[in-house]
């Protein structure tokens, strides 16, 4: 059986003044429809590059990406991206930011009234219906990211690509956003690829966690299946043995097998790693 999204042996290298820099090497991943997959790895290992190749924003040097057996050659709304820095247009209101995407994707298939309703529906989904006429500069970081998610969801993408969507938020807002995302995911059953630095976030949200080795020439180091029942509750899971086992697996991968050697001693909090590590020379 063919998979829904097939990342087929992709590699990418860039020409630099110092010669060829190989960033990714032979990444292979099959993702089923409705699956939530996290990509985790140290900073600079090329997680975002993988996401950008799936989005079509970058072309792989070797291999390719197949979505429903068609090769991805350019960006498109069927692979909506939620960017780390929200990337809302600051001169448009919350409503108009989402409406721009809705008009672009459904301009020919939906009537004006339907597009208006669909825009409002998606903003209600992320609990932003109270701020339709605000501009991005007038709302908080968490709210902006909600609007970014609403914009992506409104495109009805086949795959939702999220590049550290909550990385720039404070931890309290982040937990709220994670709960919202789980709730939306339970309702819509989207296929999601999410990049994260946060071990807890990865275990809580994902069906599978893809752990990447350090660059250059980063590749898939290990894949962890997370068999926890949904809906998941972060409080109940905190004491759960299986949950803690999965956490430990990821932490072990990141800090025993693929830590940057010179950072081991200087990082006593390694077991509770959530912060991005400084970019090393080889990253």
């Amino acid at each position, binding site marked *: 059986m063919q998979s829904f999204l097939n990342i087929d042996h992709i590699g990418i290298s860039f020409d630099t003044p110092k010669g060829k820099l190989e960033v990714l090497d032979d990444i292979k991943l099959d993702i089923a429809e409705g699956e939530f997959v996290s990509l985790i790895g140290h900073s600079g290992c090329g997680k975002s590059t993988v996401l950008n190749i799936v989005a079509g*924003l970058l072309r792989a040097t070797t291999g390719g990406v197949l979505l429903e057996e068609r090769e991805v050659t350019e960006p*498109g709304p069927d692979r909506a991206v939620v960017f780390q820095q929200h990337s809302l*247009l600051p001169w448009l209101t919350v409503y108009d930011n989402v409406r721009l995407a809705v008009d672009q994707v459904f301009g020919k298939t939906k009537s004006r009234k339907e597009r208006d309703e669909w825009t409002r529906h998606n903003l209600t989904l992320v609990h932003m219906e109270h701020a339709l006429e605000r501009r991005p500069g007038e709302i908080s970081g968490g709210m902006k990211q909600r609007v970014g998610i609403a914009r992506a969801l409104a495109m009805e993408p086949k795959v939702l690509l999220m590049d550290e969507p909550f990385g720039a938020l404070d931890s309290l807002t982040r937990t709220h956003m994670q709960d919202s995302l789980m709730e939306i995911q339970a309702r819509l059953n989207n296929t999601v690829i999410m990049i994260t630095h946060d071990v807890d976030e990865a275990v809580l949200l994902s069906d599978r966690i893809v752990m990447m080795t350090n660059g250059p020439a980063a590749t898939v180091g290990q894949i962890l299946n997370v068999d926890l029942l949904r809906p998941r509750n972060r409080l109940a899971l905190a004491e759960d043995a299986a949950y803690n086992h999965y956490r430990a697996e990821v932490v072990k991968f990141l800090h025993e097998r693929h830590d940057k050697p010179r950072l081991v001693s200087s990082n006593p909090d390694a077991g509770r790693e959530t912060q991005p590590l400084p970019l090393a020379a080889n990253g």
Partner: protein
Amino acid sequence: MAATDLTDKTFELPWLARALDWLAGDDVNRVAGGLTNALLLPLLGIGIFLLLWSAGAAQVQTSLGQLPGPAQVWEQGQNLWEEHQAARERERAFHERLDKRLQKAIAAGDPEEKLERIRNRQYTGHPTFVDQIWTSLVTVGTGFLLASIIAIPIGIVCGMSAGFYAGMNPLIQVFKPVSPLAWLPLVTIIVSALYVTDDPAVSKSFITSAITVTLCCLWPTIINTTVGVATVDTDLMNVSRVLRLGWLKQTIKIILPSAMPMIFTGLRLSLGIGWMVLIAAEMLAQNPGLGKFVWDEFQNGSSDSLARIMVAVLVIGFIGFLLDRAMLMLQRRVSWDKDAILR
């Protein structure tokens, strides 16, 4: 509502606001502090300048008599205004007479061609100082508008395409520093060659001056628009790519709003340059504007000429300031970021 607020703000006079606060009995110390900065210091600056001017002018004897001080200049300013009003009065009287003659001719049953000849008679008075200000404003407006219509699209394309920019850059760099005085003879000859009609709607000198302004106004707008467009946030461009926005929609929805502050910086620089260039161009092209006024007074060489030229200098400066304020007001009106501090 927001629009009127902005307009009010643009012409806000800080000292007037303070004075009103003070009259309303607002905290005297705070208001007094503001008053010193906003009203007293500028007045002091102007006062010292006037004193130095009048003391210095008294020391200089020229071929046209003593260099005029502030008082004489003020007097000539009033004279110019009175001359303007007198000229208007003459023009009104002329049209009244013409009307009467026309009525009489109609009553006498004169043939149609004679009536037509009366109707076609034009008032042929000398343009007054105020007329010349108006001509200058129209000329600089035309030249600036023409330059903006050409420069903004070129700048956008330069910003979007590195290749196009590489092709344009040498031309921009070479033509940018050329003085308007060097352009003018060329423009004059070319306009004379190409603009040949028996019944010109606008005079050649007007076109020559306006085109010279255009040639000097192009560059700051092109350069600043290019920079503004080239530095649009990559994430926003990625959003555009994911949404597959067409080039027109991408330009309108993402690139233009993003580059707007830089475009306006360019436009304001251009308009400032254009106003300076215009005065020089009018002097040489004999376009009936402020530049020609200065030149005519210089040639005239009467005892009032120096004071009149000084009036023109002050008016030129003040209009330049008002033009910049007007652009700022326009920028505030079209800017999406109403909190941005624009000055």
